[in-house]
């Protein structure tokens, strides 16, 4: 018996998975070891007592510590629950209808938006001196000056929660649509034929399979929210702030003894994020049990038009709020004097743009270089991994997928400080390349997740045909698979680029402040509240990923303008 091994797989394809896994997991382990193992000579946060029990006692005695910790615990699952409800409700009410495609189109630019820019947009829309209140003032409200309302930075964290939902819902919607492509919509039809309402039919028939594919993205969202930094700076409470922000503060405190607080707090952060996941998984079990009981009970839930309308509009509101926010960011960047309660600025000028042009160009160059480097490297690595999977016939197990998600399932603030010190020791810090490497860690998973489906869905009989026509596996890859997949490849590249552009903490820590990007500078400006300046920076920050996606759509359309099957950049 001869085992089928069509040809020997070249080394450069074979080692790709090992290298990729090393990049995904290595920094996480190294960073965590940096905190947990001061005994072996790592003292990442300063001082040899970074990990003593007394530090735990001290950190818990910090004013408001448990308030910060509590917020870090609940905001993850709650923001994920709201986002998931919005997305699921919409899909249940609108799957297969024209409004589904419309909303998908509306959410696409929102998806590309960096967190910081979305947060600024929300501030300009809903804060007491924001656009909504200006629209109705003083006519309806009688306000001639901004009211003293605590909307943004509220101690409960509701503004932060809203900001997170604005970014997470589009992301989960993307996860849902890609899962939906593999689900059979006829299952909902069958449930309807059995007498269930439209929404109930979708929830019973389609959602369970779709949800199984959304679990990891949801878990990533929970961890991210529980430890977010940039959005918490702009929208989060101040007295006390989210735990991640306090950790950053302790790391940066000139009183060096505070660093042991940071190390201890990091452990609590990991615990809070982990507890958020556990709660989610428990809730998952509870809900699926209840749904099963409801399903077998035979009860048919009536379709209420109000519920359906509500479910349909939720996501639309999310998209509109984000888009309006970005519009306000843009207007702010060219606004002249714009005092409350004027709804519109008294004049428009390009002063900020003209003054800041050289600097914005520099920052854009840095951002594009880092993003290009990280996403191109990620793209090549992912393509080699996927090709290796195809040639060796070994596909990713669910467990391996967990590895892929590793950098997204550990809070950034949890392992980046340790990684920073490690890189510092290796003398590899404070320049563009290490920052691009740190970005690569976060770009890789998204690139993989984006490209894996179209890559695996590719009809490999095209490759067989090319082989039968005398082409080697490498030639078939280069002449057939890559050109045909150029659309999805570019979309994966654009997504990787968008992820890189949005990175705040890795750029700040690994770059040591010497590698400014449009994102670090935009966030740095946030405290000052100079709206014109923030507007210009946040707009550039939003445009960069958007241009990436626009390019990813334009190139296949142009390249294959005479090839109908490929013109849309769609998956073959």
């Amino acid at each position, binding site marked *: 018996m001869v085992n*089928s091994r069509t*040809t020997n797989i070249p080394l450069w394809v074979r080692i790709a998975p090992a290298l990729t896994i090393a990049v995904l997991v290595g920094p996480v382990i190294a960073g965590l070891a940096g905190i947990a193992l001061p005994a072996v000579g790592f003292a990442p946060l300063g001082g040899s007592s970074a990990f003593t029990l007394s530090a735990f006692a001290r950190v818990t005695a910090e004013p408001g510590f448990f308030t910060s910790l509590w917020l870090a615990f609940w905001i993850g699952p709650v923001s994920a629950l709201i986002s998931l409800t919005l997305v699921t409700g919409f899909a249940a009410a609108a799957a297969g209808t024209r409004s589904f495609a419309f909303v998908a189109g509306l959410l696409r630019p929102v998806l590309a938006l960096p967190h910081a820019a979305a947060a600024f947009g929300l501030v300009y829309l809903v804060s007491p001196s924001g656009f909504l209140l200006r629209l109705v003032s003083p006519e309806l409200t009688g306000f001639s000056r901004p009211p003293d309302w605590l909307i943004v930075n509220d101690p409960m964290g509701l503004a932060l929660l809203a900001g997170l939902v604005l970014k997470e819902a589009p992301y989960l919607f993307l996860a849902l649509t890609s899962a939906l492509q593999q689900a059979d919509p006829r299952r909902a039809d069958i449930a309807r034929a059995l007498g269930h309402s439209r929404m109930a039919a979708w929830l019973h028939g389609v959602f369970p399979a779709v949800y199984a594919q959304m679990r990891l993205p949801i878990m990533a969202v929970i961890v991210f929210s529980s430890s977010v930094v940039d959005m918490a700076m702009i929208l989060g409470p101040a007295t006390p702030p989210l735990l991640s922000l306090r950790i950053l503060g302790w790391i940066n405190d000139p009183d060096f003894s505070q660093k042991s607080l940071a190390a201890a707090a990091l452990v609590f952060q990991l615990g809070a994020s982990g507890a958020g996941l556990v709660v989610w998984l428990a809730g998952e079990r509870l809900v699926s049990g209840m749904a099963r009981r409801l399903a077998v009970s035979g009860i048919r839930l009536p379709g209420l038009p109000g519920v359906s309308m509500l479910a349909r509009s939720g996501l639309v509101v999310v998209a509109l709020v984000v888009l309006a926010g970005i519009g306000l960011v843009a207007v702010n960047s060219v606004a002249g004097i714009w005092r409350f309660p004027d709804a519109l600025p008294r004049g428009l000028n390009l002063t900020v743009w003209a003054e800041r042009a050289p600097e914005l160009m520099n920052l854009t160059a840095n951002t594009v270089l880092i993003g290009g480097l990280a996403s191109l490297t990620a793209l090549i690595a992912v393509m080699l991994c996927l090709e290796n999977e195809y040639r060796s016939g070994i596909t990713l197990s669910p467990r391996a997928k967990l590895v892929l998600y590793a950098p997204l399932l550990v809070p950034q603030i949890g392992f980046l400080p340790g990684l920073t010190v490690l890189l510092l020791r290796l003398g590899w810090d404070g320049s563009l390349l290490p920052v691009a490497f740190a970005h690569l860690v976060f770009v890789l998973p998204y690139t993989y997740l984006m490209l894996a489906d179209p890559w695996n869905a590719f009809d490999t009989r095209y490759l067989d045909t090319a*082989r039968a026509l005398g*082409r*080697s596996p490498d030639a078939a890859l280069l002449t057939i698979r890559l050109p045909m997949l150029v659309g999805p490849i570019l979309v994966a590249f654009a997504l990787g680029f968008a992820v890189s552009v949005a990175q705040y903490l890795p750029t700040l820590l690994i770059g040591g402040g010497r590698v400014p990007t449009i994102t670090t500078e935009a966030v740095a400006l946030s405290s000052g509240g100079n709206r014109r300046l923030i507007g210009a920076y946040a707009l550039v920050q939003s445009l960069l990923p958007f241009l990436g996606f626009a390019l990813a759509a334009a190139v296949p359309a142009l390249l294959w303008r005479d090839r109908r099957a490929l013109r849309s950049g769609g998956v073959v």
Partner: protein
Amino acid sequence: MNEGLRIDRLTVYRQGRTLVCLDADIAPGEVLSVMGPSGVGKSSLVRAIGGFLSPGFATSGAVRLGGRDISALPPERRHIGVLFQDSLLFPHFSVSENILFALPPGGSRRDRCRRVAELLAPVGLKDLLDRDPATLSGGQQARVALMRVIAAAPRALLLDEPFSKLDADLRASVRSFVFDIVRERQLPTLLVTHDRADAEAAGGRVVELEAR
């Protein structure tokens, strides 16, 4: 010297269990039809002979072409043409580029283009040269796909249910188009099908595979 395709007790295993086996001699210009219900391993048989069985499968026995054992060779060196259910014309190439892709290397660009025209003219496809494959009708696609296989100058042909997706009225004409070319070029051909009409039209021997 035997110029045909010899399938020498070829057995395909999956996870250590026998999936399908075949022992047959196919003479030049002969079409051997292999029939059987779906799931019996017909496609795996085609993939084993063509050389692109997925990892996870194993084989024993041999495939000989012109007396030479080719079973250890990668597909690109077997010189066996394959036609699948779908035409699988490369969507990013024009019709002539699809054929040019298949032509053996060598010759100037102009020379190669002339050869493509010579190949397509006798079968009435010359007008389609610059077309986008996606704009061709089903019948046209099937014909171009066959001529693409022929352009690579194969020494044997594998047909994996190539007519099953065609409309009934189109099926007969494409079928005769294919079998005419097979006979004209004297290619030993293995046809895998579940449609008895295909096998009858092929006019050769019929092997029935049975479900295990």
